[in-house]
């Protein structure tokens, strides 16, 4: 048999349909062609040559897949939907290329030189407060809302003005007992959420880790893979593997999308990336492994919204709740559709705005009912999508990374010097 790539992972599908109700796009349209089972049919027909990779209808329905992989954890047969999708998208992209808007966004967000300028401009715009003011529905105003959602929340009690504020000596683990970890910074996280990186470093140090920077690292390649640019994703993966070096020191990541991609390096590079992938840990995994240490109370109602690439792709459910659970008084509310995608899905929110908003809408309804002050989620795309959605819907809540909240709690507890 020839190399079937990710298509072989679709073989266990026996068409039972148990995935249908787990698919946000099927729930939005009711159309089998927008469901995992229907898309598997399309991918099988693509593999068999019955449908051509440049068939516009085939592409439409595969493009409309969020790649949230919500179908995977409910599949009794363990179909590797995500792997099949990656192969199908690579075939489609090889034939039609990357759409111009996707190409532009990819360059602006991940291009080594360009993105630095783009993020600097974005931060400058963010500082003016104009994006918050413009936030709303519609393509442009939603984008403004997304940018506004990246702005760090300043809290009077926190000592977060000093970036790498060292841990107060009274709460410091002796240096010899620290567990060294390397930080994966990513693109959007580093460009717009550097305050989450700061919080990651501080909270890890309080819990007995020392965080090492790896200067030469590059983009994880997730957005490239979603766009069907597998060769680019492989190139980036090889670069990252080289700069992070050998050894078994954990690689900590606070973006669920990057984490899911880094953990896939083994499959992406046919096994070569497996040792690297085995080292990758979400920040909440490392924190939960140490408790984490409880902080000072925060009197707030928090809705935790698990990122798909954390819950479905990495199957990490409990650690983020343990992190939030380490904050006394904080009330964690569970909304019934929390586990469903918010519609962000990397570039999806820019490329498929109508479907993206349709997927977001039911979530905003349940959040409006639950009335939290904070929606916590551990992925830059979700933070921006939810933040923009909350602003547009007029819901008085902000989207924040769970680690930010823990950091605030630690600052109030006097753990930082």
């Amino acid at each position, binding site marked *: 048999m020839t190399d079937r790539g990710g298509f072989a992972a679709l*073989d*266990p*599908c*026996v*068409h*039972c*349909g*148990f*995935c*249908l*109700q787990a698919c946000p796009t099927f729930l939005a*349209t*009711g*159309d*089998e*062609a927008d*469901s995992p*089972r*229907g*898309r598997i*049919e*399309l991918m*099988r*027909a693509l593999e*068999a040559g*019955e*449908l051509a990779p440049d*068939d516009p*209808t*085939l592409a439409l*329905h595969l493009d409309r897949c969020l790649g949230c992989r919500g179908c995977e*954890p*409910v*599949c*009794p*047969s*363990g*179909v590797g939907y995500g792997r099949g999708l990656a192969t199908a998208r690579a075939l489609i992209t090889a034939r039609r290329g990357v759409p111009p808007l996707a190409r532009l966004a990819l360059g602006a967000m991940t291009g080594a030189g360009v993105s630095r300028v783009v993020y600097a401009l974005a931060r400058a715009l963010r500082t003016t407060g104009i994006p918050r003011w413009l936030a709303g529905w519609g393509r442009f105003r939603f984008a403004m809302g997304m940018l506004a959602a990246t702005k760090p929340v300043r809290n009077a009690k926190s000592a977060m003005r000093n970036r790498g504020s060292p841990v107060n000596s009274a709460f410091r683990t002796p240096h010899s007992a620290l567990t060294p970890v390397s930080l994966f910074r990513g693109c959007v996280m580093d460009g717009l959420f550097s305050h989450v990186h700061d919080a990651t470093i501080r909270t890890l140090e309080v819990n007995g880790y020392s965080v090492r920077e790896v200067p030469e690292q590059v983009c994880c390649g997730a957005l490239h893979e979603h766009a069907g640019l597998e060769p680019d994703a492989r190139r980036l993966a090889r670069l990252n593997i080289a700069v992070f070096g050998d050894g078994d020191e954990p690689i900590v990541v606070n973006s669920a999308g990057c984490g899911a991609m880094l953990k896939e390096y083994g499959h992406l590079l046919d096994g070569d990336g497996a040792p690297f992938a085995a080292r990758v840990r979400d920040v909440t995994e490392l924190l939960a492994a140490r408790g984490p240490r409880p902080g000072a109370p925060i009197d707030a109602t928090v809705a935790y919204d698990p990122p798909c690439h954390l819950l479905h792709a990495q199957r990490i459910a409990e650690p983020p709740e343990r992190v939030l659970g380490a904050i006394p008084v904080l009330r964690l509310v569970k909304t019934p559709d929390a586990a469903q995608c918010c519609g962000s899905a990397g570039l999806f929110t820019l490329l498929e705005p109508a479907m993206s908003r349709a997927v977001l809408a039911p979530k905003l309804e349940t959040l409006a009912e639950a009335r939290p002050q904070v929606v916590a989620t551990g992925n830059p795309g979700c933070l921006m999508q939810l933040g923009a959605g909350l602003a547009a819907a007029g819901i008085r809540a902000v989207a924040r990374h769970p680690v930010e909240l823990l950091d605030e709690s630690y600052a109030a507890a006097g753990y930082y010097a």
Partner: protein
Amino acid sequence: MSRDVASLVDTLAEIVGPGHVRTALPERVTYAKDGLPTHRRVPGVVVLPGSRDEVIAVVRLLGALGMPFVPRGAGTGLSGGALADGDAVLIVLTRLNRILKIDARNRLAVVEPGVVNIRLSAAAAPHGLQYTPDPSSQTACTIGGNVAENAGGPHCLKYGVTATHVLALEVALADGRVVELGSPGGEPWGPDLVGLFVGSEGNFGVATRITVRLLPVARAVRTLLADFTSLRTAGEAVSAVIASGIVPAALEMMDQSCIRAVEDSVYAAGYPRDAAAVLLAELDGGHEVAVAADAETIESVLRAHGARSVRVAADAQERERLWLGRKKAFGAMGRLSRDLVVQDAVVPRSTLPDVLETIARIAAEYGLTVSNVFHAGDGNLHPNISFDGRTPGLRERVEAASAEIMATCIAAGGTITGEHGIGLDKLRYMPLLFDGDSLAAMRAVRRVWDPDERVNPGKVVPVHACREWAGTRNAERGTRNARGNARSDFRVATSGLDT
């Protein structure tokens, strides 16, 4: 696309909106199968109406044009019943997913046909009520589809299948006329038309509104897992449980192959992998003490009849895990091989041990893997045959083994479907069970509802095998039937896309 089709598509788009008519091949291909993917038919046009009025308008239009059509819910059926040929329109009802009313005081709900089974129970739960029929696909299947197939489910042993729970229906007939059947307030005068419609497999029209009975959620529940070292012993224990005089809410069996597939999946429930079979028995009722006493009785019956161990679910979480494993078992069969045929037959309960042994013998003779997961308390078997359809000649072997299993069940005094329906898949077995007169009678009844046989054509009754019967015209494609109990030569059609 011919001019006729193009103008049909335009008119459909005027009714439902252009975004809800599907004509491109890739989109139609995704509707070519249901939960029994050995049958594959690509519909001519797919339309997704968004409201009752749109459904009625679409049906009226197709009636005026004399076009055949097929109603479809979530497409989780297991007999090829919701497939449409290239000359037919597939009406997909997933967008009609509103729960219109929950009347807790009168314990009933009014729903649109596309409401997913489990969502109705979830919506009724705050009132302490549930929609009781619980097909294993309940997380995906629709109430409309349940009505069409008269769906069963584990808890139908005690509470009855779908027909018991449907009070009234609003139906769009083949020509778009709307009729009301039954009454939410009680039995209406006259023949039981609701009973006739439920289980008609989409042959009598499209249900546009469904009024169902809700039952109180049982206050006390005990779930028992018994494991056995032989299939025969497990089968005998089933009869013993029923003979005890206690009616369990559910009594399900899974064999070793099935247990292992489930235990390898995310739905692993802790079934013992080395058991030849497990029985899952549930007792429920309104009083803790009474249910506990029943559970003790059943536990001792199971032990007396060869159970190696009996485990009682400690809490609601464990109970749910035991049930999820059972209900997702069908989907887990994909772990065994890439292709799957699930069969559905009913045998008298007392014959279960013999029939199970015969099925195992047939499987061995044909060199096939057969896994059993089924409603043991009803004698409703589901042999699952796993195979790799790419192997030359294997599909034919699977078909032959299926036919032999079906013949075994009939010979044991059983019948060819318990809950999956006839659809396309079982057409060939109908003449084994019914003579030409009976089949013609069924056809005559169908023609009362749908004189042109335009709704879900070619399903359920094999027209070739019908005896010409007073009051029945021969349909165009029907031939004068052969004499006696003729075997149907109805072929299972495959499209050019079949793999």
